[in-house]
């Protein structure tokens, strides 16, 4: 047994002990620390494999006897998982300290992590599918343990229903791959022609796409993430949907490889819809966690843009750019894991401090919670794709890939690339819009509620965890190049690239990110010095001579109004104003404004209605009488006999 294998086993043992610990003891800090240590050990071994250590464990196999192993891609996802999960576990030490039912929550958190790790280290279909199911069920349980009123039950029901319907795709895909002996051996599938491959790929896109939250299969995501406890939502958004992307990458780029060109167009199209749709709906949300959930859809869309571009480049034989686009997707996966975990954790800290997460009712938290608030600001700037933070690096790389697809020579790819590049640029601008709104409503301006005035800074563990993640946002933004050369080895056709701190990609003007970070900081400091600290007179903000009352202050709806009006055809907002008059005098005004989720009203509701109607018809067959059922069996038997007789089956 190699040293690396023993480290992984030690980590797994610590994780299991940490999971079981709450059963015997009340001391949750120990349980969480054990879990964190276990995940950290497993994640660092994953990172070692990624950075060139020998792969450990078994190879992929098609038989059903369980096997585990870590190769480069698994190592990358394990490292990403640890980067998000360790801070989340440390955070929950204080977050769960005074929560009710915290013991089962801690145990479930450990089980959730085991299932997530299980999916990425599984080397056979049975373990993969078992972990996959567990990964779906555990967060649902954790959500219900925490709260189980009607809204939460409904959200969890939708989550389970949609992910299980989609999960059928995963089962079919993995079992069909095992049937053809294609897991770990793409040549096996190629021997059977294109039809099985197309079927398996379609199933993979439906199955893994649902879990990853690609539009239009995303319906569960904005419902499930807001109701889960914050550390679980952080793991769901930061890690679980990445594990689904892991499945998609394995299926498309390894087991069913090489994917035909239409797959590239499909993934690119889904990515474009998800990124634009996700951020547009995120912009219109009033609940902080729901906004973050929609923004996860956007980021999965950006990853899908990279993956789609990679497939299309491969189909053109451009292996260099195929690898760069693939790496852009991976880089965005790790970046999103970092800043989305950060934002969800801070959302938990804010919820604990001020009670509700209604964006219009917070305000001014930066003054009261400077450390967590500062981390939230860094995370928001990173997710908005602003230089010199990490979100910019991966979006820059994705945009470069799309631009190089747009410049030809093929007409179809060129137009697709140009539209996708313009869509990504618009997505980035919308993300700036969305997150400056978020920062403004939550951190800046006056407090909008009395509870907010009394908010205090979060305890040390929570503060430390989010500040660590903010540091990761800066570090990954400063030196993404150190990661790139290893990630290049994971691409379908590995390419070599000189290791540099910045991103020196051929045929671009290069992104020397350390210098960019230095430049922004140094010049800001320079201008700060030049500005000097002159006396400045305190005055109220100018509002044409009026005072800015909290009830008159700007809210989410007002700030996004120009965009809502511009895109009225897309959003189809509904508003209702009821004026109550008596004796010619206005007594009261009632105003309601809603942005319906078009995927729900135009897609899911008709499907749901159709399913219910079908069920009503099918119910007529269910008379409840035993004789009728015996007759059905007889009819079936006869039908089968007839079919055998005429040679249709058998």
């Amino acid at each position, binding site marked *: 047994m190699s040293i690396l294998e023993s480290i992984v086993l030690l980590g797994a043992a610590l994780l299991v002990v940490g999971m079981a610990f709450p059963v015997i003891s009340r001391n949750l800090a120990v349980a969480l620390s054990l879990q964190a240590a276990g995940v950290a050990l497993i994640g660092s071994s994953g990172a070692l494999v990624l950075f060139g250590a020998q792969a450990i464990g078994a190879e992929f196999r098609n038989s059903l006897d369980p096997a585990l192993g870590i190769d480069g891609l698994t190592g990358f996802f394990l490292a990403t998982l640890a980067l998000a999960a360790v801070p989340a576990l440390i955070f929950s030490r204080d977050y769960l300290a005074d929560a009710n039912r915290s013991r089962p929550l801690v145990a479930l958190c450990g089980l959730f992590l085991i299932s997530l790790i299980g999916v990425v280290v599984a080397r056979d279909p049975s373990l993969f599918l078992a972990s996959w199911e567990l990964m779906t069920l555990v967060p649902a349980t954790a959500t219900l343990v925490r709260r189980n009123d009607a809204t939460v039950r409904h959200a969890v029901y939708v989550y389970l229903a949609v992910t299980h319907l989609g999960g059928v795709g995963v089962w079919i895909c993995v079992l069909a791959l095992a049937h053809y002996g294609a897991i770990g051996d793409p040549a096996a599938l190629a021997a059977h022609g294109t039809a099985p491959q197309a079927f398996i790929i379609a199933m993979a896109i439906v199955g893994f796409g649902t879990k990853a939250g690609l539009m239009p299969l995303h319906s569960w995501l904005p419902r499930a993430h807001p109701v889960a406890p914050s550390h679980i939502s952080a793991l769901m958004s930061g890690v679980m949907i990445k594990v689904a992307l892991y499945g998609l990458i394995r299926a498309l780029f390894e087991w069913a490889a090489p994917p035909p060109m239409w797959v590239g167009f499909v993934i690119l199209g889904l990515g474009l819809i998800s990124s634009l749709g996700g951020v547009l709906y995120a912009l219109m949300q009033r609940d902080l966690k729901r906004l973050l959930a929609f923004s996860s859809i956007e980021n999965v869309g950006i990853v899908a843009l990279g993956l789609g571009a990679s497939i299309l480049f491969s189909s053109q034989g451009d292996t260099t750019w195929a690898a760069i686009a693939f790496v852009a997707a991976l880089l965005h996966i790790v970046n999103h894991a970092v800043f989305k975990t950060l934002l969800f954790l801070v959302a938990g800290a804010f919820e604990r401090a001020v009670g509700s997460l209604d964006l219009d009712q917070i305000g001014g938290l930066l003054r009261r919670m400077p450390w967590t608030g500062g981390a939230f600001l860094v995370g928001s700037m990173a997710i908005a794709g602003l230089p010199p933070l990490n979100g910019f690096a991966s979006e*820059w790389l994705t945009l470069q890939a799309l631009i190089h697809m747009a410049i030809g020579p093929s007409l179809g790819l060129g137009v697709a690339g140009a539209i996708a590049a313009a869509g990504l*640029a618009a997505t980035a601008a919308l993300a*700036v819009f969305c997150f400056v709104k978020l920062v403004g409503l939550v951190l*800046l301006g006056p407090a909008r509620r009395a509870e907010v005035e009394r908010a205090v800074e979060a305890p040390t563990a929570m503060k430390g965890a989010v500040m660590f993640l903010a540091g990761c946002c800066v570090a990954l933004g400063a030196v993404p190049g150190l990661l790139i050369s290893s990630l290049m080895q994971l691409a379908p056709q590995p390419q070599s690239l000189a290791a540099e701190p910045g991103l020196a990609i051929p045929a671009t*003007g290069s*992104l020397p990110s350390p210098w960019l970070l230095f430049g922004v900081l140094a010049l800001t400091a320079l201008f700060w010095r030049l500005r000097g600290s002159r006396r400045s007179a305190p*005055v109220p903000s100018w*509002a044409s001579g009026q005072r800015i009352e909290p009830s008159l202050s700007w809210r989410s709806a007002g700030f996004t109004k120009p*965009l809502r009006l*511009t895109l009225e055809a897309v959003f189809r907002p509904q508003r209702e104003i009821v004026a109550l008059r008596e004796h010619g005098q206005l007594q009261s005004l009632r105003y309601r404004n809603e942005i319906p989720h078009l995927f729900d009203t135009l897609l899911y509701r008709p499907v749901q209605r159709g399913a219910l109607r079908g069920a009503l018809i099918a119910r007529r067959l269910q008379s409840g009488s035993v004789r009728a059922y015996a007759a059905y069996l007889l009819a079936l038997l006869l039908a089968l006999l007839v079919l055998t007789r005429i040679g249709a089956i058998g």
Partner: protein
Amino acid sequence: MNAIAGAIQLIGGLALAPLLPGSIQALKARLQGRRGPSPLQPYRELRRLWGKSSVDPQPTTLIYRLAPCLVAAAMALSLFLVPIAGLSPNWPLGNDAIVLVGLFALARFALAASSWDTGSGFGLMGSSRDLTLSVFAEALLVLALILAVLPVGSTDLIAMSSAANGSAVWSQPAHWCAAAAFGLVVLFETGRQPIDNPDTHLELTMIHEGPLLEYAGRDLALLQWSAAARHWIILVLAAELYLPHWGGFGARLACLVGGIALLCVTLAFTETAQAKMRILRAPALLGGGCLLALVGLISWLVS
């Protein structure tokens, strides 16, 4: 040569930039039959503001005071990225076009955050409009840049500018489309009519001026310099990538000066001849630019 180009990058951006909005204003006044301010007026404004004390709207945080410095830093960094006459010394910052887009977004974020910090309606109105239009403008900018990348296959601004050198590119319809599309970007980024009106402080119409309302003293001076530097960067970019230029460094430098002068005159003319359009109509204009750019791309790909 590189050293001269580097010197012009910095001196031009830092010192000459205020001349651009100043001369546009002066020329516009002439066209409208007024005497108007001298082209040097922005310098006087900056000197006056630099000496004044500032005010501190309550309740604001550090973000409000940091925003002008961050905006100015983003603009100052952008100066290093844009080559002059196709040359730029080997600054360690590279010359990538998309990094420029990112730095502009950073400035926009900082300014919008500052208006949330004051909570004043004027600033928020301006920045919400600015951000709404930026969605369309950024897509248009990327498409226009793609068209300029076509002949050279790289997003390096030096290579892109060299590819636009000479008369060969003008035989491509794509280049004409690119020039027209980038013209709309120029109108948006410099805050000119018909998209924005730089002369007004009416809340019904203003976009870029809105978030500046609360600032005074050196903060306002930094922001006004940043607005001038934004003019400089966008106009130099337009002249380098989308306007005709020929020959070696000297000739191209002359072409650059001519191109910037031409753009200033054109802006003064459009400001005089065009009424401001409704804000909600502007996205359609920018979207039309996107379609034009796509047509240009298709014309290149089929030929």
